[in-house]
């Protein structure tokens, strides 16, 4: 959906074989090394390593592409290759092909060491240099920091000290690049986000930092832009004249699981609202960008984020909860306070809801309700635009008893697609109107062809195409929205318990109910 950035545009000017009309030829990354920190983590095994294979299998990685793993374990190249192989076998989405694996395998290297160890980083620098010579990676290097933020200062400093962060001299007339990829959390409040950014900024220029919000790699999220700006049907009603309110939901059925240590003290709002939900809100509420290049798109998102207004009374305009023991999906599960690694007096919320306003001409007076939670009935992420009721219904009151509000629902996951909900006559001799769905499902219209979010994002990093990555300004704007809420919560409230498997605390329903509205069923 999002068009090629200027990097790809330049290629067409230089490369006689590229032609914007030639849409069979995919965007292929240039030669490069991907250095991955934290290769033994869940994310690397389940998402990143399989994504690399899938990219190679689709012919989107260049000859010579190399992957260097860096971790504490006392491993040889072979051990890391084995981990990569197993991860691919288990989690890759495209069929396994020995030839593709050989291509990936030839470029796999492992460097053992601690983040504070000078010698290890010197070895890493040496490995990258060797790969350059052996496999012609052109001096280009991306660093994927799949590690806790507390390790950032060490790693970033080491990259600088060992000279790895320096792109060096042009290779045959082309300036090599350095890029660094980071994952959420981007801090835990505005101050820490700035601090984190300062660490990166000291070594890497802003345009070479890629912040991954994997939601933005999802087809359905990019489809928001297509739905809104490629059609004439929706944009005329995409405003306060027709929309009553907007609900943005990310529900999870799981508990804190293995993330307990990280989750305690962070909570649902910082974990999900700050990044995913506010990004979805920005894409829903923003004005049409001049183009889909990174600057225009980010500028519109930033304008939308700047226009967000907090509820006047945070006590009634927000809600937070903590799951208690209960039955979820047919299994008896412990409450949050009983989870391993969570202190029994933890005040961390596992459910958060907030009512936000967007102070623009388009959205004045239209509330945006955001909610997220763990141990809810099912896993589901959606954006629902709930429309106003028709100003006049020329039916008897009994005819439209079952008629709800018209709705346009963008289902982000699972069962990606778009639903339009509207009233329709029930067949029969009486005039009776009931809600029906008109449904577009990705699974039915383009099965299998949509790449995994990480595939898309990794490729964009290697190509250097930034529109799908939030920049620091967006991160800071989001914290400006969340910080006052977190402060209020810390001072005044305790999370309200809700039963695991239920749809959240009573205060969240009250947050909606005071305006005569209700959450959509989970």
């Amino acid at each position: 959906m999002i068009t090629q950035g200027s990097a790809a545009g330049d290629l067409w000017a230089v490369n006689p074989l590229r032609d914007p009309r030639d849409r069979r030829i995919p965007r292929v990354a240039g030669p490069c090394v991907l250095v991955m920190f934290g290769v033994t983590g869940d994310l690397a095994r389940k998402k990143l390593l399989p994504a690399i294979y899938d990219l190679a299998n689709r012919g989107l990685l260049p000859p010579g592409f190399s992957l260097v793993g860096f971790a504490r374990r006392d491993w040889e190249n072979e051990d890391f290759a084995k981990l990569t192989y197993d991860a691919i076998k288990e989690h890759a989405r495209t069929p396994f092909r020995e030839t593709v694996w050989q291509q990936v395998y030839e470029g796999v290297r492992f460097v053992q060491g601690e983040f504070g160890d000078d010698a290890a980083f010197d070895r890493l620098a040496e490995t990258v240099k060797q790969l350059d010579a052996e496999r012609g990676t052109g001096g280009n290097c991306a660093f994927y920091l799949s590690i806790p933020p507390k390790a950032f200062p060490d790693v970033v400093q080491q990259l600088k000290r060992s000279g790895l962060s320096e792109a060096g001299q042009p290779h045959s007339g082309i300036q090599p690049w350095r890029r660094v990829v980071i994952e959420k959390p981007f801090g835990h409040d505005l101050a820490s986000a700035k601090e984190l950014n300062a660490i990166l900024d000291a070594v890497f220029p802003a345009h070479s930092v890629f912040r991954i919000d994997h939601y933005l790699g999802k087809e359905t999220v990019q489809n928001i832009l297509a739905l809104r700006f490629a059609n004439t049907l929706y944009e005329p009603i995409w405003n306060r004249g027709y929309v009553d309110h907007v609900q943005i939901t990310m529900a999870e059925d799981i508990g804190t699981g293995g993330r307990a240590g990280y989750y305690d003290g962070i909570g649902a709002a910082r974990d999900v609202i700050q990044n995913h939900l506010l990004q979805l809100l920005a894409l829903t509420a923003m004005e049409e960008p001049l183009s889909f290049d990174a600057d225009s798109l980010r500028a519109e998102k930033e304008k939308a984020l700047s226009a967000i207004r907090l509820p006047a009374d945070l006590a009634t305009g927000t809600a937070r909860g903590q799951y208690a023991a209960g039955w979820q999906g047919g299994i008896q599960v412990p409450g949050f306070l009983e989870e391993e690694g969570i202190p029994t007096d933890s005040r961390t919320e596992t459910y958060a809801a907030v009512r936000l306003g967007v102070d623009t001409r388009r959205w004045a007076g239209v509330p945006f309700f955001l909610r997220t939670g763990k141990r809810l009935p099912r896993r589901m992420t959606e954006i629902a635009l709930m429309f106003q009721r028709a100003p006049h219904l020329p039916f008897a009151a009994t005819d439209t008893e079952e008629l709800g509000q018209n709705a346009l629902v963008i289902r982000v996951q699972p069962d990606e697609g778009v639903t339009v909900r509207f009233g329709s006559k029930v067949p029969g001799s009486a005039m009776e109107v009931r809600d029906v769905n008109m449904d577009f499902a990705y699974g039915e219209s383009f099965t299998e062809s949509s790449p995994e979010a990480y595939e898309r994002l990794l490729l964009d990093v290697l190509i250097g195409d930034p529109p799908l990555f939030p920049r620091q300004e967006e991160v800071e704007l989001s914290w400006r929205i969340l910080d006052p809420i977190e402060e209020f919560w810390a001072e005044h409230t305790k999370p309200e318990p809700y039963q695991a498997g239920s749809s959240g605390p009573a205060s969240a329903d009250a947050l909606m109910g005071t305006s005569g509205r209700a959450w959509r069923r989970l």
Partner: protein
Amino acid sequence: MTIDLTETTTGAIHDALMQARRQVGGAALGMVLTLIIVTDESAQYDSVRAASQAGREHPCRVLGVIIRNPAGRSRLDAEIRVGEGGPGETLLLRMHGPLGQHADSVIAPLVLPDTPVVTWWPGQAPAIPSADPLGALAQRRVTDAAASDKPRQMLTALASGYRPGDTDLSWTRATSWRSLLAATFDQPYGNMTSGTVSAEQHNPSADLIATWLAGRLGIPVAREVSAGPGITEVSFATADGDITLSRPDGRTATLAKPGQAERRVALHRRETTELLAEELRRLDPDEVYAEALARFAVHPVDEGTSA
């Protein structure tokens, strides 16, 4: 489920489809296009199978047109498959006698409304696909020069009959080579003087790649014959030495550039299903194909000749 209808009409086929849909459930919903396959009894199995596999990516209504016994009495037999092995619907339509000359009258009522129509000739194709009645129904017409007895003549004929929306599977087969070549030239390269494409003797994909390269790079590109399989090598002579992309085994390619280490990359030959899926992904006219084809008609490459 499979429904066999003999001596039938399109109306009866339509009723049977609706009934099957009710019984199977929502399986038939959400189809994105109609794919007409013009084939014969011996080739229908493979091509319909390829189509229904490609249908996993693009759920579609497959209409297999099989012309039989042109001398006999007019008769329409239909074999309907719904909810089997794929999300779409497959109809095999056997047309006997003079009806075979009027296949479009059977197909037109069975084409899905509001969605694109693609006609595919897996075997022999008409020289002007858009002039064929079944081609005229479609906005995308897919031929396969490689299936023709004389691929080069076929390409020339296709060039003179070209209309926007025509495309050929031999061009689709060239995509993976072309993208690898394009990626190769993303990197700096020396001044090129000439190029060579080596492949089996009858390989229209190699012919089109040679023509495309010559047109794009503005250098003579020769076509050489090798033992295969498929395309085995593309090379360029530059001031600094040769740039070579070779694939002797049909699976892994090796890229060699002057002064650089050799690099290997997987480059497998693709199944018909994959080709068809690529073909169905984009339904807009392929202008780059049109240019390569037109150039081929003017400068046909042959063994030892340059494009």
